């Protein structure tokens, strides 16, 4: 209504004395033009560099894909000597490790984020935030050492426990007898489970900081409203903070999933390579795309290198898909408000 009124006002004013619109020059002059050109040049350079990588990977995967066709995605073995090259088992291994990592990291990240934003007292809050950021900065090789030397003995015990009590679930199966007097610890080590645990520590801080950021933006009025209506702290979290932060929770999880898919060094340190097409995270042996590249690039001939680049390209596309979905979800959530004066 008000818009219409205003339009009528202007119309009336225009009819009585037609004011000439001031002529505005949109041309940039002098240093402004240099600035725009320079900035555009830098942008173009970065576009060429980064886009070039994507195009290069796509171009390099043409010979492999035309040579093997769709078999590249269904073949499980990676043995260039016998001309059998495919990423089915490797992709499954990548997904397994990432899935284990997310199953561990998601609840922990959510709980840690809730603790920092809702439960921690103001005095220790900033310390805890710094600790999570520090966790993100710790090099992945150090998580690899931690997983390999410190965690693996415990993790194999947990794996055996899961196998003993939940072994009837197909994905907890391990090809050995868990109740033997001398249990075969080596069957439970170097598995996707242990690698996934190490990777989860890497991706956890990323998910945690995204979630905490979103939780802290939950509107104060709604929080106080819930508390004033008699909600307990958990009731307030469940009815205000979690619904508000849903986009951030999903988005942060997917961002860290993207990171988990591409993690290399910790996985290489922990797993022992095997190309079986199986979904048994607890059992020894698996292989991921990035570990495959790290292990095979050295002795690769030109055609094998193309195959490795294709595998890398496929990994990149999957990661890109996950990240794009995450970005869409985060931007659609309520928490995308900008800052302005």
């Amino acid at each position, binding site marked *: 209504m008000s818009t219409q009124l205003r339009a009528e006002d202007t119309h009336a004013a225009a009819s009585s004395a037609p004011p000439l619109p001031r002529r505005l020059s949109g041309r940039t002059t002098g240093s402004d033009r240099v600035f725009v050109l320079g900035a555009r040049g830098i942008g173009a350079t970065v576009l060429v560099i980064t886009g070039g*990588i994507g195009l290069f990977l796509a171009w390099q995967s043409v010979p492999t894909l035309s040579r093997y066709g769709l078999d590249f995605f269904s073949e499980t073995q990676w043995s260039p000597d016998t001309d059998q090259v495919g990423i089915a088992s490797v992709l499954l291994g990548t997904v397994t490790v990432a899935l284990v990592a997310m199953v561990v990291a998601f609840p922990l990240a959510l709980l840690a984020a809730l603790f920092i934003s809702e439960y921690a007292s103001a005095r220790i809050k900033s310390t805890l935030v710094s600790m999570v950021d520090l966790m993100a*900065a710790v090099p992945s090789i150090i998580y690899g050492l*931690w997983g390999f030397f410190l965690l693996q003995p415990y993790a194999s015990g947990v794996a055996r426990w899961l196998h003993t009590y939940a072994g009837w679930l197909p994905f907890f199966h391990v090809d050995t007898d868990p109740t033997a007097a001398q249990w075969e610890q080596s069957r439970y080590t170097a598995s996707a489970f242990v690698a996934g645990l190490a990777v989860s520590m890497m991706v956890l801080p990323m998910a945690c900081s995204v979630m905490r950021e979103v939780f802290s933006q939950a509107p104060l009025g709604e929080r106080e409203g819930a508390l004033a209506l008699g909600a307990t702290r958990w009731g307030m979290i469940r009815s205000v903070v979690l619904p508000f932060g849903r986009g951030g929770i999903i988005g942060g999880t997917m961002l860290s999933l993207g990171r988990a898919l591409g993690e290399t060094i910790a996985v290489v340190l922990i797993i022992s390579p095997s190309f079986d097409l199986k979904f048994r995270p607890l059992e020894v042996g698996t292989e991921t795309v990035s570990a495959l590249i790290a292990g095979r690039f050295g002795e690769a001939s030109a055609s094998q290198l193309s195959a490795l680049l294709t595998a890398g390209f496929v990994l990149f596309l999957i990661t890109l898909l996950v*990240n794009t979905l995450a970005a869409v979800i985060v931007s659609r959530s309520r928490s995308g408000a900008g800052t302005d004066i």
Partner: protein
Amino acid sequence: MTTLTPATPPPAQDLQGAPVPRTWVRTVEDLPGRGTIPPQRRPRPTATFQDRVVSLGSMAAALALAWAVCFRLLPWGTPLGYTIVAFVLFLAIVTVATALLTPGPAVADRLASAVVAGGAAVVGVALVSTVVFTFVRAGPAVGHLTILTQDMSGVGPRDPLGTGGVLHAIVGTLVQIGIAVVVTVPLAIGTAVFMTEVGGSFARVVRTVVEAMTALPSIVAGLFIYTVLLLSLGFHRSGFAASMALSVMMLPIIARAADVVLRVVPSGLREASLALGASRWRTVWHVVLPTARPGLATALILGVARGIGETSPVLLTSGASTFFEANPFAGAMNSLPLFVFDSVRSGEPLLIQRGFAAAAVLLVLVLGLFVAARWLARARSGR
């Protein structure tokens, strides 16, 4: 007491333009006669005596019961098993106790508090154990100062810890990351300035591609440099190739982070500068970048910390030398993450200890960078 900051009431209209009643809370300073009285914090008891008794009692009961379960009833007598069983029992006991004393929403609240605190504790234990474990395992090798003053040339894998060190890897890491920073930072910040200050459809294309390339796995960045620089262009493995791989990996990350930081610079500042007659370049240089400086520094330092710790691009491109090499173009140049990786994979106990020492040095480097980032970020809140 929380005071709401805006000094004027928000417009009392909803999106349709119809006036709606709104509650308006005035700040404390606005209230007449209240300016002289310092606001006093009302004591808010967070836990009653009964709450504490229930918590402590449940804890004691859970610990005792878990001991009986793990060490007397079931074969789960490991520290890890004991901790898990004790925590699960604690949750059960605290739920039952609360339900008996104060049934209703308080049960879920108490249970949720315990679960959330437990999850946070697990994360804390993981972080602390990572750092402490690295330093403890590094202890024997760091005890010898040669670890910081010598390289590994002529040192066999079974030579005692008193000979040889990781100086070459430290220098290699610093040289490689230095080149990567020099290459990356102007490009990344320039791109961010282009994306936020110039804009337009081309900037949207650049932003899309840069955001897409943050998804590039670091090993693929290394493989790209390996294929292009080493195999096609005939460079040999060197610090330069490694720093190029690190740059390719870091460029989208830093550019994106800088973009986010620059986007939240209030446009009112920009418009004020332009309205005073400053050119766009002077606006960026004297207003936008200084305003965003703490955020930019944090973005940069966290990007660098990520680059320093990243092993996979370096693994493919730098070559693992054992001798001191400061010239990035001369030949193979080791770095700390690569040294750690190689020595741990070797399986030699002494070499693994050296690997842990290198990991500790790497961790100290990253911690130093991290503290610097915190310190720079704090400069903003001090203003």
